[in-house]
């Protein structure tokens, strides 16, 4: 099966083409540049390098968030439109799960994270079982200090993955001491080939109703709901 994988949920842009058991190519950049300008050009270039036409594609896998709202939307919009017009299945995979997959041979717990401002992080808890990454605690947005405290209960070695790990390393070390370590620099960029791999056998989404997993409500919506709540109290 020929799979195109797209991840634009952080500053890292990842595109991969996987053909059956073979990772044919991937493009990964970690640049503060505009995804909207670069993603379709990168897809075009990569398919061309792989001597493939869009019509050869049999499945699209996209990182569905959490992450930058705008970033995730660009990837998801492209993925939905391609899957719809090429009439092929679409699979969405957690952007944090893709990050965790870089550490799938770690003996212990894997904590992928993205900075979510004001001390908060998008994170989840994953565990590697013989090279397979499994979710233990669902993706969420939480204060890094609270998350570090919760992780204490597991009493296992913990690996932080993701480019924003360094921003929060101190918080985790303070609470968890030597049981926590940060993945090496070369593991932080999520690998789009891992994304393709995670999605290759999964149940496809309904293309029309598929939306990013933002985790958070839009701010205006949250404020509005809070006001409604006040009114009923």
């Amino acid at each position, binding site marked *: 099966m020929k799979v195109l994988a797209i991840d634009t949920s952080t500053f890292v842009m990842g595109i991969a083409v996987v053909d059956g058991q073979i990772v044919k190519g991937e493009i990964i950049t970690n640049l503060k540049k*505009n995804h*909207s*300008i*670069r*993603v*379709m*050009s990168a*897809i*075009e270039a990569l398919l061309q390098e792989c001597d493939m036409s*869009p*019509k050869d594609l049999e499945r699209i896998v996209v990182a569905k968030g959490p992450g930058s*709202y*705008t970033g995730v*939307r*660009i990837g*998801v*919009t*492209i993925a*939905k*439109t*391609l899957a*719809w*017009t*090429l009439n092929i299945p679409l699979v969405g995979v957690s952007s944090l799960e893709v990050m965790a997959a870089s550490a799938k041979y770690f003996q212990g717990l894997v904590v992928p994270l993205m900075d979510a401002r004001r001390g908060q992080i998008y994170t989840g808890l994953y565990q590697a079982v013989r090279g397979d990454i499994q979710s233990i605690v669902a993706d969420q947005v939480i204060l890094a200090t609270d998350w570090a405290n919760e992780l204490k209960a597991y009493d296992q070695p913990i690996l932080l993955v993701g480019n924003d790990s360094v921003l929060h390393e101190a918080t985790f070390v303070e609470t968890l001491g030597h049981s926590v370590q940060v993945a090496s620099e070369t593991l932080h960029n999520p690998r789009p080939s891992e994304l393709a791999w995670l999605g290759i056998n999964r149940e496809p989404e309904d*293309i*029309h*109703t598929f*939306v*990013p997993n*933002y985790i958070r409500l*839009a*701010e*205006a*919506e949250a404020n*509005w709901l809070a006001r409604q709540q006040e009114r009923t109290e």
Partner: protein
Amino acid sequence: MSEKDIFVLGIETSCDETAAAIVKNGREIVANVVSSQMESHQRFGGVVPEIASRHHVEQITLVLEETMKQANMDVSEIDAIAVTEGPGLVGALLIGVNAAKALAFAHRIPLVGVHHIAGHIYANQLVQEMKFPLLALVVSGGHTELIYMKEHGVFEVIGETRDDAAGEAYDKVARALQLPYPGGPHIDCLAKQGKPTVDLPRVWLEEGSYDFSFSGLKSAVINTLHNAKQRGETILPEDMAASFQTSVVEVLVGKTIQAAAHYDVKQILLAGGVAANEGLRTQLQKQVEQLPEVELVIPPLSLCTDNAAMIAAAGTVLFQQGKRATMALNANPSLLL
């Protein structure tokens, strides 16, 4: 049109409408689908960009599918894809632009980027063939512009607002009158029941200028309402609506007629969401009689508000002129005409 017919798929997501349409030869609507989010934004009293973007992602493939179904066509039969690249809300524009690029890429179809206002002007082409030179009055929530066109695809902005757009002034005045969002239609409706008894300014700016300014008028309305309240007097909302509308329309129509005479145009086109305003339509129709040589074209309401047929119509001209966008096409929220 000779030889082969040209089918252009238009995509528009610049604000709170997710829209797609197919237009044949730049003039004939084959399919036209608009999914409005207005209800969702009403509770916030205006369009919330993040929420608009979220809705566009939910709607985009549904709207595209409905369009192809209406046209009974396959995307591979399309000759070009035209998409609004700006101006507008950047996060909203991005959805249309990236969907358009993905479609163009998947089927190797030429892609053209369209300016939203060019789209509004070309909505007229779906009603009546454009005759040059012409003058377009574009009035919407975000725009108040007088545009002179001496030929297809060439736009000269001869007048624009220096502060609020007319539609923006309508929304703010509507809020002051405690009318629901969006304010334009409510004021238009209320104005018909009232009389322009309140003395409000008409801002003509300096002699010979075709620019507009509505913030002074808006403030005058708010101050007048405030002062009346302090004195314990009541101004009937319908009279205030009528007075405000009269002032706006007088200036819009006055400047349009002046410019049409000065530039010796063959046509005046009314474009943009505020073109749905009955007060404006009626006055423009009445005043244009001063210029018997000039034809006035006002598209039906459904083509005045945001839609993708207008983008396809404008895109057809650009496509025929050889304009092409690459896979690097981006949303440009402050795109110039």
